[in-house]
């Protein structure tokens, strides 16, 4: 079957890919464009490890058609750091030892980033709500919640590209 061209912005750069019609954004990002930060965890929309921002809002890339992303702004955990400078969320995840196996971390960072873009000073309950679609099997969630709360309101918080436009 003929491949279909798709163009979108990925972490601030214009990217293009040829995709199969029913191909998921997750597969295009990983196998097509080599961005391995979004992970495959279930393909069912129930674990959150594939979460990316589309126009600033968290979406599950395993359930999103790549052909539906034409012209969108897509951001993954790969694009959070500014060169060697970590995003405050990344710094606080380190500070709070909020990762063990690290597999859920890109997705957690992504939903946390969307939360702080919209709500720079969330309550604990709002943080919990924001990560509720993301499974972590290692940490018991507490270090992740603590890290996000610590990052909230940090100086140097950089908004996602989509978040700036939202």
């Amino acid at each position, binding site marked *: 079957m003929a491949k279909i061209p798709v163009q979108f912005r990925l972490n601030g750069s214009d990217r293009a890919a040829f995709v199969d019609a029913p191909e998921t954004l997750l597969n295009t990002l990983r196998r097509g464009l080599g961005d391995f930060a979004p*992970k495959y965890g279930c393909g069912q929309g129930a674990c959150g490890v594939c979460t990316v921002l589309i126009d600033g809002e968290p979406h599950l890339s395993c359930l999103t058609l790549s052909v539906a992303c034409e012209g969108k702004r897509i951001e993954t955990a790969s694009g959070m750091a500014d060169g060697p400078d970590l995003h405050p969320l990344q710094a606080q*995840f380190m500070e709070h030892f909020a990762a063990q*196996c690290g597999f859920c971390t890109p997705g957690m960072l992504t939903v946390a980033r969307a939360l702080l873009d919209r709500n720079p000073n969330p309550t604990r309950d709002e943080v919990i709500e924001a990560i509720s679609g993301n499974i972590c099997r290692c940490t018991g969630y507490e270090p992740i919640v603590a890290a996000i709360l610590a990052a909230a309101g940090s100086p140097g918080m950089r908004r996602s590209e989509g978040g700036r436009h939202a």
Partner: protein
Amino acid sequence: MLEMRKDLFADERDDNLNVIGKGLQRQDMPGHVTGLTRYFDDHAFEGLLHLKVVRSPHASARIRSIDVAAAARAPGVRRVLRAADVPVNRNTLLSLIGFGKDDEPSLAVDKVHYKGEPVVAIIADSEAQALAAKKLVRIDYEPMPAVFDVEEALKPGAPVVNETYSANYFEYHERFDHQKLRFGDVERALASADMVLEHRYQMSPIEHAPTETNGSIAAPEQNGRFVVHSCAQGLFFALGTAAKIVALESNRLHFIGGTVGGGFGGKVDSLTEPLAVLGAMVTGKPVRFVLDREEEMLYGSPRGAERIYIKDGLMRDGRLIARHIRSYFDAGAYTRLSSYAAIKCTAHLPGPYWIPNVASDVHVAYTNRCPSTAMRGFGITAVDFALEVQMDRLAEAAQMDPMEFRLLNAYRDGDMKPHRRKASNTALIECVQVAAEKANWPISEQGKRQSSLTGGGVGERGQIPATVLDARGQIGRPETRNSGPTQTLPAGSSRIAPSKQPVMEGARDGRAAPAQVPRYEAARPAAAPLSPPPYQPAPSPYQPVTGQQPPPYQPPPAPPATAAPVQTQHGAVRFSSVFGRRR
């Protein structure tokens, strides 16, 4: 929140260390937070093929025929693998350490023994094409009876689950249908106990549920080698298993892994590596075999369920004098690692307590469900649940506070354990004391003064008692299931040579370095063990004092070679949920 109690056992430590004990940042953390950490699936290959397996929809069935012709012709399909394509299609994981018989095929041969058992593998250009081709495989099954309950499976006439172990149990020492533990005379002690409590416990199966599912990518390297990106929890375990199944020398496999998205025991079984390597061998292309989440949930091998019966003899003053445990590991259809868990469980019994008479019978039973495997706390988690709920019941029966009850029965340095080795380096008492203090759970002053360092190994606590043996559960002789004692092993008997020192060796220039074991050494020599009076729990302020003082417990004398029928002591209280109502 974590708090260190450096004051406890301080004289056994030298805290003057450079980096040990420091909360330094993890080496892998920067990679985790930037999304740069590479797991097995985060590697790009040109021409990557995808492998999916067709699984049995039946728990037990004979395979009448398999027709893969339509699937083989489907768009994008490169190869369809069947049982005959697997070079060594029978394996057991622990064959690498010489434990157990090969009992499990990579692809089912003429029967399936659990729902989800792989039967056919399809290798295609894309996952979607492999999934579409799966639907075209025609397998004609003849369903057969299945058994799902461990105790039903062990009854004569139960459906045969695993032809290699046709009576549905793992064979221990080529003699018994279970692993035994015998220490003292449990039956006699139970008969002299003030109370006997017997209860049944059931641990559920558990799915490991790592966020990364099982998977691997195998690709041809140069010189006839294959590189394998693997999620394995034991890299050489997976390498050895794959090498055996695909019949390759181990040095033709180059396994890369070590960075795994959670395991918890669920990535020990080499679920994908052998077929991925075989796929790369037959196609000459990189082949990726990743379980989807539904496969991981249903067929990714869980922690096996365990059924545990505990029967305890308790004195009114709270001392435990006998414990018998009968348990059943649910291995599912094949052995995997369950055989080992039973041994580990046996060594763990009776829990962290000193009890003068202990026996256990740990069974591994096969049922028509997905084979179970190791999981965090393997062999221990379930029995700890059972033991500690039982301890709660015993404390209540003895009208004691649960903390005081633990302190009374806790094992201490020097106590003889039922597997006939002395306990050392114990600290249960201190954990109970500290947890009680932090939780503001009052314990007696005398309880607070107890120590793991003292009082253990005194008198019978440090001895191997005369032990009653039996021949129950001999392989092939169902009539022995309920047979009686056969002989009594004299006190002090030991038949297994004490363990050798750990081997710890580095060498250079071809010369062996001094075989020094860098044992941790106490900063100050430990004080000579004291022999304080045996612990007597103080009357608890929140427990009614029991009425009549019972006669002190006397350890039973060495019984005659053939034990007399045991008599239930007059007035003994018996509780039982074993034959009680089903919850």
